[in-house]
């Protein structure tokens, strides 16, 4: 099976029903995409399929044939996507495990809605769990990346 991952053609010999997540992690060695629940309930495995955010843990690899998969490793060549920069400047991650999925969901949102409202951010990001509780900083990082004024959590805390 031929896959296009982060702009590179890859050939994988796997069960076509294997979720994209395991093809990425186990077969292609792209471990930036995380396994959190296996049931599309937590969002840690989010990647883009032709620009749409999908849960790779439940999406069979056959559905990616002829389409472009983008993972956190391919979101930008050097970590310079506005969201990646905002994630660092807002010190968003705590443990960091869910953050690749958070960023990929946010990137799909900003590609469609460049200046999302707070409600649109909440609605789009509600499928992504964070147990450390970084939600406020996720919101402010998305606002920063979108060039909205935003309420920086960093500035707001004393």
């Amino acid at each position, binding site marked *: 099976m031929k896959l296009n991952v982060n702009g590179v053609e890859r050939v994988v010999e796997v069960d076509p029903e294997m979720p994209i997540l395991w093809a990425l992690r186990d077969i292609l060695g792209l471990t930036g995409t995380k396994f959190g629940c296996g049931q599309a309930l937590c969002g840690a495995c989010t990647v883009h399929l032709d620009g749409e955010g999908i849960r790779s843990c439940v999406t069979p690899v056959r559905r990616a044939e002829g389409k472009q998969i983008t993972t956190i490793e391919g979101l930008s060549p050097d970590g310079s996507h506005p969201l990646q920069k905002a994630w660092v400047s807002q010190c968003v991650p705590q443990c960091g495990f869910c953050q690749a999925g958070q960023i990929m969901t946010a990137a799909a949102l900003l590609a469609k809605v460049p200046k999302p409202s707070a409600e649109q951010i909440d609605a789009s990001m509600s499928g992504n769990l964070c147990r450390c*509780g970084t939600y406020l*900083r996720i919101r402010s990082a998305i606002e920063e990346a979108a060039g909205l004024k935003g309420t920086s959590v960093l500035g707001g805390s004393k």
Partner: protein
Amino acid sequence: MIRNLSRRSVLRGFGLAGAGLALGCFGKHKDAPALPGNGLHPNVFVQVGTDGLVTLVCHRSEMGQGVRSSLPALLADELGADLSKVKVVQGDGDKVYGDQNTDGSSSVRKRYQDLRQAGATARAMLVSVAAKRWKVPESACAARMGQVTCAGKSFGFGELADEASKLAIPDSKKVALRAESEFQYIGKELPLLDGPDLVVGRAVFGADIKLPGLLIAVIARPPVVGGSAISFNAQKAMAVPGVRKIVQLEAPAKPFKFKPLGGIAVVADNTWAALRGRAALEIVWNSGDNGSYDSAEYKAQLLQAVKKPGKSWRNVGDSDAALLNAAKVVEAIYGTPHYAHATMEPPCATARFSDGRCEVWAATQNPQSARDDVAEALKIPPDKVDVHVTLLGGGFGRKSKGDFVTEAALVSKAVGAPVRLQWTREDDLQNDYYLSNSVQKLAAGLDSSGKVTSWLHRTAFPPITSLFVGDLAKAPDIGGLQQGVLDVPLDIPNVRAEGCEAKAYTRIGWLRSVANVYHAFAVQSFIDEIAHARKVDPRDNLLEIIGPARKVSLKELGVEKLPNYGASLDEHPIDTARLRHVIDRVCALSRWSDRVKDGRTLGLAAHRSFLAYVAVVVSVVKSPDGRIRVDEAWSVADAGQVVNLERVRTQFEGAVVFGLSVGMYGAITMKAGAVEQSNFHDHRLLRIAEAPRKIHVEIVESHGAPCGVGEPGVPPVTPALANALFALTGQRVRDLPIVNSLPV
């Protein structure tokens, strides 16, 4: 400690900071595991290379609390290194570092002094060389940003390192530490060390280890702790393409400790094949001793237990008599369920057993105990086990217990190949070490003027010690009682606290802030109930019950002893001035005087745990759709001297979200000994839309002895929420989770 330096290097082949291969250079310190490069290496934590590169070892596990920036900051500040240029290497599991069990909010508070001394020792040696070269007194030299300077002259650390490495290492306890006014990093906001790696997917977590010939294993574990497989269909599982081997693992004997739960492992070429193989096993289980455990019935038993006197642990005056003579008695019973850790990264470890040795890579909070447990399970000496620590995708106490690490080692040995042992979310929620469920009865007697004259607190919860001594543990012990029962300052003349019978029927473990979760919920809710019974401002009532500013003695508490989180009461007294101060601050920030205004209400709670003082106010509103939401929260903490102020703030922000999740949603229930929840559809955690729009954190400026940070933000959150909900709805929630009673 005498060690054989020919032992295989601890940093071989893998280091989070890219340590690469550590080759045969040993520093001057006899115990120090080798770090790459030559130079000054006076202790196990610091190396100054002849090229000027400073390498610092972080010996405790990073799980989001920021230890990989805070511990290196202690070393770098005393050394005078440029923190932006140091290399941080993750220490392996090795007793040479001292305790590495990253729990109890203890990394900074227990190592604040000796890590500074380790940095200062290296500085003293570098300064000594520079002073000799310049023929000036050492006191005329300063070490800053990787240089030693004196009157306009300077040497880079690298120019001094070789000569310094030939000096006798001074006694670290006698080396002068910097004055607080000289701190360059300690107490400041430091950049996020692993941030750039995390946002591009390069950071290495437990499941991200790549080895040649690596196989993937998943295990079907018995649904009931202590159970085992009666039969299973190995053939059918082996028929799944990619499945290589089926391995049966022994059921553990009580006490369960950190032993694996047994079950059937399916080993395959990839995770998908392993999961499909596991699904094909058709296992018939036997439930063992705990097959009748029903958490709802158990709660009824605990309810009976707290209706009778238990063992008295705290006694001042005569609480029973004072209650009988009270003009008014306020009484309430609180119940809390089991909770799971639900770290976003399910447990995972990779092991490679060969030639009588085992090398392990694991998302572990406790690499030394993992090393000992693996050695015991494989029947090899601990020095034939290497445990490398990856980043942890959340810990919260779950990953202190190395059952999953031992599983990986056992399966690797059984198949003769390196194995990644992956837990699924279902595995995680159904085979956790659960926080104790609890029932508590509180009673307070008021005199005719409304003053509280007596206090009774009965608590029943299965103790953590059951994990280590099995059925011998039948009732709460001091480990859990010190957390929010025995240590609560009460300016009340008659006080009694009792622990009532509660046996464990599942694996009980510690979860972020542990017994403080349920004790602070009950005590701080109850104090709010007293305020409403007295018809006084809940803040004034809370301050009155805490009493005037003082250091509370054991005698005043009415206890013989108090573990006090391993700290002396001289250094860390129970200081009500600090508790009162955080309450005052949080009330000022949240405008407590407007606590019921424009359809929103505030609730307050305050609690000392892990030696830190925290007060929280939560604001709730009714949404147009009838649901209640938390719209804002304030948390004020006095944790003594903090190291990385930025990470400390984020811990308290995160603790608000964690505490709201605990209060509102995430209960674990058990029937016929098995957990009823399986994944995030039926085990609900707070999502972004349910998180407050604003969380304000204030950290009290202090140079006092450092206190815990990771855990103490959690306990006041749930009662503050319950108190706010009462103010909003008039309904008092005494049973968690709140979602069972109110539309949150």
